[in-house]
């Protein structure tokens, strides 16, 4: 009998860059689960669907010196966000006070009922040697002070009262080394608004408020060279991993980070350290200031560190720089991107953005599963040859050369044309931001509702088994952290195991995202079209000037997550006469903002509206990465139908349906697209995504939502099952049956519309309104009416001059 470990993926990796040109070098970072050697080969990916009913898997080997056997190395991911303040002798205090506001979200167990263990709030604590000091939450959920003088000499003093989840507390501990006196206290600080969805009625207060005094040895903690950490403690001082470049470019040197432990879930605000035991009144004074601005001179003199998380968030809260506003300027750095721009202990609900009231957003939310960068050691590089055709490529990794599923992984990257200019008249934009949003969802294992949405039991593949063991390698925006908060930041600098050829996706009867986009890549290849491959990252950086180099720009099947810069580029391209083909549904839906200093990382904040995996906490709707309102583009007045002609209307993550031609398809302006297709012929009643061209998610036209007034309806789908439900952003009152809250069998808005319209300067937009469309292209050896309609449209769009 095979065990889970035998079936689990044994090799995986990621690259330093997503989109490269000929002459560029790509670095690969590879993990080998059992330290086994592996063969790496660079391949061009054509078709990733292994379904025996389709054309099958297609790849082409690229001859390069990179292709050889490599020694394998197990590389761990150290997940969990925290703040590091590098070691400084001034942090090695004897007597001291630690204080902060905290909002714990897993004081004892996580949302799955698993014990979290002790969590550090502020610590200069070396766990292996048991030295140092720190303010912790202990295994019983109580605030606790730890003092360590070496192994066997670790002391813990707690309040003996449990901290409650989603409640703000004022917490403090003092130690007088000369007298051996210890005080530790936790005081709820609750207003009607400040805890978000946490309770505001704590009665009796004594259930959770507590203070205690203790006598201890008259000796301070033993000093060590470990850093001071906020939201973690140090397991090992040296990890061999360093911070540099990207979102750490402000650092004066490449700081080495520790291996951390005692990871905390929840918010922390105004953490402070003083080098003597303060009175309760002095602690009040200290905590009254975000930094040290209103701390009297005498008291200021004993402050070692006063970290003000609101100090540098006025424009955006993307910075990893953590300001020490105290006299020593012991600045820190945020690692694994703790979430900034979140409501603080003093949030009044008068403001909904940290930009409008940074002083009410002085908290940071830490999660013990966050990953900004796996920071693995480089394994090998590939220099893109000058003559390499633009396309979708990957390093194919095979443990010991084996082709079995658990021994093989593909690490994708995209080759765009050389800097000298385009090599084709057609460009396909690969939806990297959406691949990031859907990264490592782990829904097969974690989500109860996934089976209701998809109407089936999930299928686990070798990568899914590894992903669950590794707690999602940092997860993605379709899941929640273990404290119940949605994952709002996703990085490409780690393996993304559901962005792979051959992968069968939990949200589909077959494929979704990257692997489904290869259906289109394959069809373009089989039709002998020259196509330049671009990515979201390229459009983000270069805007409409990049798109204007192409006669036709295509999307893949689900470009759901786009930035403001991308939205503007597509709008301007259409205005300038570009011909845009949206071969998708539910595109341009969520606001998705790349990190201003690292394009490999994006942020998504899903608000009150939209068909969504989670809802952001009250008052936290604005992106840390640009300070603007997150959520639906529709909420920001940029509903997708303004530039696509169609808007998200329904979804059913199950089997598909087909289209019927609409009367507009016979008009002189449109009939050229239907050459060779009969008037009453159903379109796309076949395909590799749910056996039909209209499926998964569906878009419809809507003149009330900005569909252009001269748009044509070419076709519409019908017959979607009652697994197809209405999108939530259009439900005001739910009512049984028909339109509001209706399903495929009783809501006429449950359909995919093919819409076409012209734009200025002989431009045009062609939208199919279905995520399953591209899966039908290869049917009957590419000879079918979906393929024909696509081919007719592309041929027409490639011609210069006005359209019919």
């Amino acid at each position, binding site marked *: 009998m095979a065990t889970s470990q035998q079936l689990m993926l044994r090799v995986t990796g990621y690259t330093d860059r997503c989109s490269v040109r000929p002459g560029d070098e790509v670095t690969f970072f590879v993990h080998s689960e059992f330290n086994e050697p592996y063969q790496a080969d660079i391949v061009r990916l054509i078709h990733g669907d292994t379904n025996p009913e389709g054309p099958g898997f297609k790849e082409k080997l690229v001859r390069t010196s990179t292709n050889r056997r490599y020694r394998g190395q197990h590389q761990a991911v150290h997940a969990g966000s925290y703040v590091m303040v590098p070691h400084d002798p001034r942090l090695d205090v004897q007597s001291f006070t630690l204080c902060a506001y905290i909002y714990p979200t897993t004081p004892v167990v996580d949302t*799955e009922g698993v014990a979290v263990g002790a969590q550090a709030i502020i610590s200069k604590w070396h766990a292996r040697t048991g030295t140092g000091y720190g303010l912790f939450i202990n*295994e019983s*959920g109580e605030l606790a002070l730890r003092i360590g003088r070496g192994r066997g000499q670790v002391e813990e003093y707690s309040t003996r009262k*449990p901290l409650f989840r989603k409640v703000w507390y004022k917490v403090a501990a003092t130690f007088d080394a000369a007298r051996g006196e210890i005080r530790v206290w936790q005081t709820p600080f609750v207003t009607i608004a400040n805890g978000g969805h946490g309770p505001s009625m704590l009665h009796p207060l004594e259930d959770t408020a507590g203070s205690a005094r203790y006598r201890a040895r008259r000796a301070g903690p033993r000093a060590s060279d470990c850093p001071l950490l906020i939201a973690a403690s140090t397991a090992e001082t040296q990890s061999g991993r360093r911070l540099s470049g990207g979102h750490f470019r402000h650092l004066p040197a490449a700081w080495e980070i520790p291996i951390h432990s005692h990871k905390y879930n929840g918010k922390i605000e105004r953490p402070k350290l003083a080098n003597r035991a303060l009175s309760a009144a002095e602690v009040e004074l200290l905590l009254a200031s975000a930094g040290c601005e209103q701390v009297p001179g005498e008291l200021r003199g004993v402050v070692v560190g006063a970290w003000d998380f609101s100090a540098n968030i006025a424009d955006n809260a993307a910075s990893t720089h953590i300001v020490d506003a105290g006299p020593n300027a012991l600045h820190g750095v945020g690692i694994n991107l703790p979430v900034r721009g979140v409501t603080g202990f003093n949030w009044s609900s008068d403001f909904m953005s940290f930009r409008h009231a940074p002083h009410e957003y002085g908290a940071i939310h830490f999660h013990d599963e966050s990953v900004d960068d796996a920071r693995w050691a480089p394994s090998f590089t590939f220099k893109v040859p000058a003559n390499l055709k633009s396309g979708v490529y990957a390093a194919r990794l095979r443990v010991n050369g084996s082709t079995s599923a658990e021994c093989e992984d593909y690490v994708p990257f995209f080759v765009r044309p050389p800097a000298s200019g385009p090599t084709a008249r057609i460009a396909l934009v690969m939806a990297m931001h959406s691949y990031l949003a859907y990264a490592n969802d782990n829904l097969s294992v974690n989500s*109860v509702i996934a089976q209701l949405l998809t109407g089936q039991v999930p299928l686990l593949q070798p990568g899914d088994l590894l992903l669950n063991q590794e707690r999602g390698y940092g997860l993605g925006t379709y899941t929640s952290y273990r404290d119940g908060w949605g994952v709002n930041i996703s990085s490409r600098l780690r393996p993304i195991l559901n962005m792979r050829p051959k992968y069968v996706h939990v949200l589909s009867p077959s494929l979704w995202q990257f692997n489904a986009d290869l259906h289109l890549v394959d069809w373009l290849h089989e039709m002998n079209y020259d196509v330049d491959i671009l990515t979201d990252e390229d459009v983000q950086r270069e805007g409409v000037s990049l798109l204007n180099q192409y006669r036709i720009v295509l999307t893949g099947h689900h470009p759901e997550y786009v930035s403001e810069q991308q939205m503007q580029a597509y709008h301007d391209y259409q205005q300038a006469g570009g011909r845009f083909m949206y071969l998708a549904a539910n595109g341009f839906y969520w606001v998705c903002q790349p990190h201003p200093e690292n394009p490999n990382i994006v942020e998504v904040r899903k608000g009150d509206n939209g068909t969504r995996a989670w809802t952001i906490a009250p008052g936290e709707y604005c992106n840390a990465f640009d300070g603007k309102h997150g959520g639906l583009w529709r909420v920001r007045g940029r509903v997708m139908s303004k530039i696509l002609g169609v808007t998200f209307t329904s979804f059913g993550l199950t089997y*598909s349906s087909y289209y019927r031609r609409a009367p507009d398809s016979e008009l002189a302006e449109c009939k050229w697209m239907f050459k060779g297709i009969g008037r009453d012929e159903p379109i796309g009643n076949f395909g590799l995504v749910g056996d039909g061209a209209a499926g998964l998610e569906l878009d419809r036209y809507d003149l009330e939502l900005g569909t252009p007034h001269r748009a044509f309806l070419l076709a519409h789908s019908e*017959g979607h099952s009652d697994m197809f439900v209405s999108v939530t952003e259009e439900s005001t009152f739910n009512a049984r049956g028909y339109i509001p809250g209706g399903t495929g069998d009783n809501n006429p808005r449950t359909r995919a519309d093919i819409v076409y319209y012209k734009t200025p300067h002989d431009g045009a937009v062609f939208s199919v309104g279905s995520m399953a469309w591209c899966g039908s292209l290869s049917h009957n050896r590419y000879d079918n009416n979906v393929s024909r309609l696509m081919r007719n449209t592309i041929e027409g769009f490639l011609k210069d001059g006005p359209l019919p």
Partner: protein
Amino acid sequence: MATKRHARPATALARDYGFTAVDDYDVRTYMLPLLRDPAQRAEIIAEHRAHPRGAAAEPGATPPNHSPGLKRLIDKLRMTPQTGKHTIVETLPWQEYAIGILPGHRGGVVKITRERYRTREDAEHAIFLKRLYALLDHYGVKY
């Protein structure tokens, strides 16, 4: 937030009694009459066997919706809590599928049982039957 030192309040509310009670009412009221009848039960099982994962709509045919009885039952079974829930593990792509058991939390190990099926549909139906019989056992329905 119960621990050895701090017990959770011993109230019905704290253990989500309201949800459990109404869910129990729904099963007894709407599902058990159907499931207790051997003929209707056999019909529901046969209907699931025909299309365990659904089917595409075909031009000229009625869309493939499940019957009201199967719909209600299958939605209930799909909401089985994640801990110990059956799943499908691909052991040989397009050739062999195993029944697995979920750990219910991230970081846990998915257990792989000895049960193997040639198609994903066969495995899906096998899991449906396991969940159905567990429900019938819970309510003391003989089958």
